[in-house]
């Protein structure tokens, strides 16, 4: 492996075993994400996708293994170092995770207020721009409780992008969105990569968007508690040795043909 290739790795996971209490959810996971890549984590419901994501971003301590982000080990990092590292990437959560006591604009403005020296007017401009990106113009002053689930997801995206991070983690960004908004989200993801060279790690169920946006996917499995397939979605769909993987990825084709 050449030095150049290792340098390009923005997330690197080695021998990761994760779980809760005594219960192992995933065992001995190895993979890496290259800079500028759109990387998708697939798998059935409850197989541990969100769990894996939360360990990647350093929220939970894994049983064993290492996670390198931007070349720094987030597993062994101290409190301060970890929080500095965390600021450099954006995350959206499956449930949106907006702060209930703040309006959408305040939610998006929070990281800007905390970490930049921008004036309130500048912040306001950025906030409006981010909310426009996710199609939420005009909802600046709404509280999270006053908008729909899909809108919360999109507002979460806007907040994750507030500081223009070069690495983004999305947990099921398109679940609960209508097909048109979902397609727009895919276009937004592609544009972020094209214009800002952002690396994006996505957990998703939406096969349509997997085929549209992803460069590479890994597929997690409940029974083996590990990765059962890795590669480009097209190659896996056609040539995977595992029939379950082929079937999972072909579902979207069936759906498309019927439509």
């Amino acid at each position, binding site marked *: 492996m050449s030095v150049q290739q290792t340098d390009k790795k923005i997330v690197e996971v080695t021998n990761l075993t994760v779980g809760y209490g005594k219960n192992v959810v995933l065992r001995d996971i190895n993979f890496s994400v290259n800079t500028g890549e759109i990387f998708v984590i697939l798998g059935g419901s409850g197989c541990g996708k969100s769990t894996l994501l*939360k360990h990647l*971003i*350093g*929220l939970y301590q894994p049983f064993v293994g290492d996670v390198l982000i931007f070349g720094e080990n987030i597993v062994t990092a101290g409190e301060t170092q970890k*929080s*500095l590292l*965390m*600021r450099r*990437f954006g*995350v959206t*959560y*499956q*449930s*949106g*995770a*907006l*702060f*209930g*006591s703040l309006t959408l604009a305040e939610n998006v403005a*929070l*990281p800007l207020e*905390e*970490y930049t020296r921008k004036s309130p007017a500048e912040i306001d401009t950025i906030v409006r721009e981010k909310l426009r990106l996710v199609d939420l113009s005009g909802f600046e002053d709404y509280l999270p409780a006053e908008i729909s689930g899909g809108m919360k997801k999109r507002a*979460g995206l806007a907040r994750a992008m507030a500081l223009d991070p070069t690495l983004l983690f999305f947990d099921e960004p398109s679940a609960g969105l209508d097909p048109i908004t979902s397609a727009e989200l895919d276009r937004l993801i592609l544009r972020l990569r094209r214009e800002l060279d952002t690396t994006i790690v996505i957990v998703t169920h939406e096969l349509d968007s997997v085929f549209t946006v992803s460069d590479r996917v890994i597929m997690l499995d409940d029974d083996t508690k590990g990765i059962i397939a890795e590669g480009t979605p097209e190659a896996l769909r056609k040539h995977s040795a595992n029939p379950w993987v082929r079937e999972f990825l072909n579902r979207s084709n069936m759906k498309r043909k019927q439509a």
Partner: protein
Amino acid sequence: MKKKTMPTLRDFVEGIGKASTIIRCDCRDMIAFTGDLTLTLLFICRHPGKIRWRETLYYMDLCGSQALPIVLMICYLMGLILGFQAAVQMQKFGTEIFVADLVGFSILKELGPLMVAMIATGRAGSAFAAEIGTMKVNEEIDALSTMGLSPMRFLVVPKMLAMLVTMPVLTVFGDVAGLLGGMTVGVTMLDLPMVVYYNRTIEVLSPTVFNLGLVKSVVFAFLIAAIGCMRGFQSENDAQGVGRATTSAVVTSIFWVVVADAILTMLFSVLGF
């Protein structure tokens, strides 16, 4: 299948073992949380600009202004009840005027701070636990951490500051209401002239007595806010979990408030106050 049998000695010992493990874990968590909180409070003292003032004011309103009517009413009634019970006994000896002493000391040293603490536990402590627990379910706490923002500074410090400021103030109001309750009994039931009762109260009560009550209320405020927040952070990730966290916050707070009251009372008397 497990058969139901009479509990044996073994079960009993096992039960005690389990319970003590739980208590030990609980104490360890509490110490860890207090340490963490102390560090954050020290950090805040050095960087006062990092205080979230808007949230702090919101909680001051919630725990302070909005609690005032109930505090006044409960403390007035406490004074009334206390005065009545004392009056019945004192009348037997013809020493009615001592009702003023009894009510004054009890309210200022004990019942004022304690009643305010009980009300704050029910109103604020439970609200803190429920709020933080719900935020945990919504992954909001995770979101704060990954934004590099300390949940301690964002969620606990505003609540703690609000409680530390409002509880002593509420206690002052509660004290006054309680004394008025005692006076009501003195004037109506014992036919003492208002000015006599008033003078007697002023004569026996010293600023120290009043201050000791305030010291207690500050300690109670710290306990209630810390335990409410801690139980919120410990809440399990579902709706029932939040409910249990709230209940536990109230029960634990009441327990520790009473324990702290006992310790402080002993301490004060040893120190000769």
